[in-house]
């Protein structure tokens, strides 16, 4: 059975993620770690070589990482996006919608709680990075 906190079928990246500054200095690095204040858009020229982007949540209230993940997916990045730091169960569903597909929080999450949270809402009002069909589209076919 797949690790419930990783929602991908490919093998996990084995290279530790380096800081954005270090990543930009290392032309062969494939894993990068974004702090909450880092600008995800500077990764645009390097997207082809990235296998893992870790996005840190220093406090669960700090929602900058949601935008970073959306921006990566909007740029076409298809590799792994991992949420780290103060990731509480109640963030996970929103994170999945923003394009996160793995979770390595400071405090481990109960997989049953994660499943319940991901299945809580039957639909969504807005299109996002997860491809879920928004309610308006269900209404109008």
């Amino acid at each position, binding site marked *: 059975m797949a690790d419930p906190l990783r929602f991908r079928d490919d093998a996990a990246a084995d290279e530790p993620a380096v800081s954005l500054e270090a990543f930009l200095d290392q032309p062969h690095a494939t894993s990068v770690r974004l702090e909450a204040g880092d600008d995800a858009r500077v990764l645009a020229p390097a997207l082809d070589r990235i296998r893992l982007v870790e996005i840190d949540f220093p406090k669960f209230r*700090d929602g900058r990482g949601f935008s970073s993940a959306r921006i990566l997916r909007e740029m076409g990045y298809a590799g792994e996006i991992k949420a780290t730091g103060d990731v509480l169960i*109640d963030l996970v569903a929103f994170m999945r919608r923003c394009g996160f597909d793995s979770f390595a929080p400071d405090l481990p999450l109960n997989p049953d709680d994660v499943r319940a949270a991901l299945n809580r809402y039957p639909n969504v009002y807005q*299109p996002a990075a997860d491809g879920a069909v928004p309610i308006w589209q269900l209404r109008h076919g």
Partner: protein
Amino acid sequence: MYKYDHYDQAMVDARVAEFRDQTRRRIEGHLTDDQFKPLRLKNGLYLQLHAYMLRVAIPYGTLDSRQMRKLAHIARTYDRGYGHFTTRQNLQYNWVKLEEAPDILAELASVEMHAIQTSGESIRNISADHYAGAAADELIDPRPWAEMLRQMTTFHPEFSYLPRKFKIAVIASAADRAALRWHDFALRIVENASGEIGFEVFAGGGMGRTPFIAFRIREFLPTAQIFSYLQAVLRVWNRNARRDNIHKQRMKILVHELGQEEFTRQVEAELAHYLTLGTDFPQAEYDRIAAYFAPPPFETGLSDEIDRSDPDFAVWVNQQVAAHKAPGYAIANISLKPIGGIAGDISAEQMDLVADLAERFSFDELRASHAQNLVLPHVRKTDLYAVWQALRDAGLADANLDLVGDIIACPGLDYCSLANARSIPIAQQISERFADPARQRDIGELKIKISGCINACGHHHAGHIGILGVDKKGSESYQLLLGGSGDEETSQARIAGPGFDEAGIVDAVERAVERYRAVREPGERFIDTYRRVGMDGFKEAIYG
């Protein structure tokens, strides 16, 4: 009025189930208070001075009789028989038990209501002109767009953990009855030279400890781009706001640090990106929603005459009734500001009565205003007398709309854990001081707004006369401000001088009012006189 379909209902029902589960986890000890607090706040549940307080969203201030009766039922069953209408068209219950909060949310869901995102760092309830759909001066009904915005902003995955709260207002007339430019993001529906409908957009307003009036950041935005545009604004703010100081995280701070030009430039750049993504809601969805807001079947051929032979009724009509778009109809304002009463408070019995009146006389519609009053939006002029009689018998027929007695006041230190001083007793004493209705009418339009702390829920920055309660070495003290406004000529009130104690502030207000009466020119309102003579024209009269 909008009706939920099974999709909307399922979302609200899921929210109730989620909160029931979260509440159970808290009561059983699986969540700490620190972990639970943001969850309850996203459902409008605060811990206040005496109990939990629940803030119920009234989207764009519109209610029907079934919903109002449900609010009355909740007040009786779960609270202490009353509710409080707020300055953002919401309703608050002051005596909620945590263990019963999920049941209240379930009751609300049964009448298509909720408390979603009424607190916390989220996109709050969308407010609108309380005369929407009725006002003679509106271009179109702004509520379909407000409902679209409600759906666009409910559980938005990227923007549910924002730097701070985010407040949106929508109007569709030149007259601003919604304090547009005091909002983080505000839309005025306009028509361009080609006859197309679009939005004039304002951003970066807000009260609180650092008040700012919103800049206009777009003269005309095509309606089809509104979701892209709103997301562009939110993303610029979410990515660039400070996160290290809660007092500097509102969007108004970023907007004013970057300046109107640079903020606008960044929003336009982000908008260009969003437009490539195709996330906007289609016209068909607007059309579907707008159909719910089709005008009610107004009768034609009705008389526009109002029999004013009963003098008390005539006074009420002159003060409380506004022009309606349909001939023979009127907008009737219901004052929740009885002399010596508590601004915005309404008993369960009064809620039921108002619901009955809406059903009988106003096509089943009610509105809550940001000034903490209620509105019957569609009353036949020939029914006004019957409406007034019923209101009079229920103690709801005060004729003080926009007069000195129509004071906005936050709950203050009588209820609120953030407050530094009491607001309600000041409002009560001022309204008693000016109790004489003839004196009130002679003074004319005068908007007094009282907050019990710098968070400014009582809108003191926007008061013609504003009052701010502060803590002065453990006692309550009150600052006097003059010259604010929340209408189309928005202005920020300025502090007049040193503060006063409780008795002193009431005297100071009276001295300011008497100064106005002494120096006003014919036709001038208080605010007009203030703008002409300035603070200097009042200072000596106030401080001697």
